[in-house]
């Protein structure tokens, strides 16, 4: 039985977001008997072995054919099923872009597409597997709910929330195994409602996915410089919680942080909202710059793209001094 317990939260953290997704699928048949799960030959990698063994009649391995998987998921959705389809985030968003546009965005079919290993999670496989553009792709297509959970418990909550809404959903999984824990106990996950993890008046960091935990560490370091930092977990990219963004305008500096390109993701979404405000502080967008790094492990790539805790602190301090 998959329950939200301290032991399971620890287990999911060790498994990482892919494993947590696999565990989350085990809770879905309790939500609906229409749940089906599809994979593009990433069953074990997605943590889906237990679901496959327990519910073989609901599990479909489509093979290494992501576009076909999307098409099959769309057909299942059209017939009243609730399909969860997962693959690498870069393949999900880029390879399947046309199927997403037609079936999910235009036809609004209730496919729940899960993008595994977004950001630099599988950076050792190089640029072909790194996903720094999936939010930008998904944001450009109407009608798709976009979720970006901060840690593994959030992954479980996001998957359960996605199963309970009609319409298409994209869930972006980030981080690696031994994924840091942001939420140590059950919490209220509402699609479209950001969570303020701590209050502060000088700086407001709005982060998503893996960068939420990093932001908490950044905030802790900034205290040494007598700067108090509000940290917001923006787990839903669409519908965006614009009221929380407007509230952030009371800060001296808004910082958005994402393991994604600076173009088209969370930073862009927040900037679009801020552009409509008359009074707003400066906005520092932190994310990946537009280049492809050499293949490398997760920490190497965070360093290369300036997204380690220390590098983020330095960039924020530089921005504050320039004010």
């Amino acid at each position: 039985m998959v329950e939200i317990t301290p032991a399971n939260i620890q287990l999911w953290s060790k498994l990482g977001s892919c494993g947590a997704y696999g565990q989350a699928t085990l809770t879905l048949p309790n939500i609906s008997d229409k749940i089906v799960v599809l994979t593009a030959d990433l069953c074990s990698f997605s943590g889906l072995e237990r679901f496959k063994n327990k519910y073989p009649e609901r599990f479909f391995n489509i093979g290494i054919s992501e576009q076909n998987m999307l098409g099959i998921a769309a057909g299942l959705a059209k017939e009243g099923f609730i399909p969860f389809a997962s693959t690498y985030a870069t393949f999900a968003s880029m390879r399947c872009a046309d199927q997403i546009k037609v079936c999910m965005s235009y036809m609004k079919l209730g496919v729940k597409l899960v993008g595994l290993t977004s950001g630099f999670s599988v950076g050792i496989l190089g640029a072909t597997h790194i996903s720094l553009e999936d939010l930008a792709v998904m944001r450009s297509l109407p009608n798709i709910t976009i979720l970006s959970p901060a840690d593994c418990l959030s992954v479980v909550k996001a998957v359960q929330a996605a199963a309970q809404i009609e319409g298409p959903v994209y869930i972006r999984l980030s981080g690696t195994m031994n994924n840091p824990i942001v939420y140590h106990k059950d919490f209220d996950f509402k699609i479209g409602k950001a969570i303020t993890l701590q209050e502060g008046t000088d700086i407001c960091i709005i982060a998503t996915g893996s960068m939420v935990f990093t932001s908490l560490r950044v905030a802790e370091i900034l205290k040494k410089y007598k700067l108090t930092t509000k940290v917001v977990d923006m787990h839903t990219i669409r519908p965006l919680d614009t009221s929380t963004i407007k509230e952030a305008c009371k800060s001296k500096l808004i910082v958005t942080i994402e393991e994604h390109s600076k173009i088209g993701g969370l930073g862009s979404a927040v900037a679009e909202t801020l552009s409509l405000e008359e009074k707003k502080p400066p906005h520092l967008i932190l994310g990946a710059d537009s280049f492809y790094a050499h293949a490398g492990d997760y920490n190497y790539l965070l360093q290369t793209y300036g997204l380690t805790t220390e590098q983020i602190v330095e960039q924020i301090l530089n921005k504050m001094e320039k004010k």
Partner: protein
Amino acid sequence: MSNIDKYTNAFVETFEVDEQTAKNLKYQEIEAWDSVGHMGLIAALESAFDIMMEPEDIIDLSSYEKGKEILAKYDIEF
């Protein structure tokens, strides 16, 4: 609780087996000890002994008996 009791208890709790069964267990010998169950066991052992295991040790921990040898590297005596 002694170290051996804590160690055995990690298997008992993770795989929901009795003590005697736990002491003879090997990886993938029972349904519960799959890759997910393995990480659950590792989490339980790390919590019980306040250690962080190295990746190669996590992979090598293939049985109850093997695990005792591995934990000796972390200064855990049985």
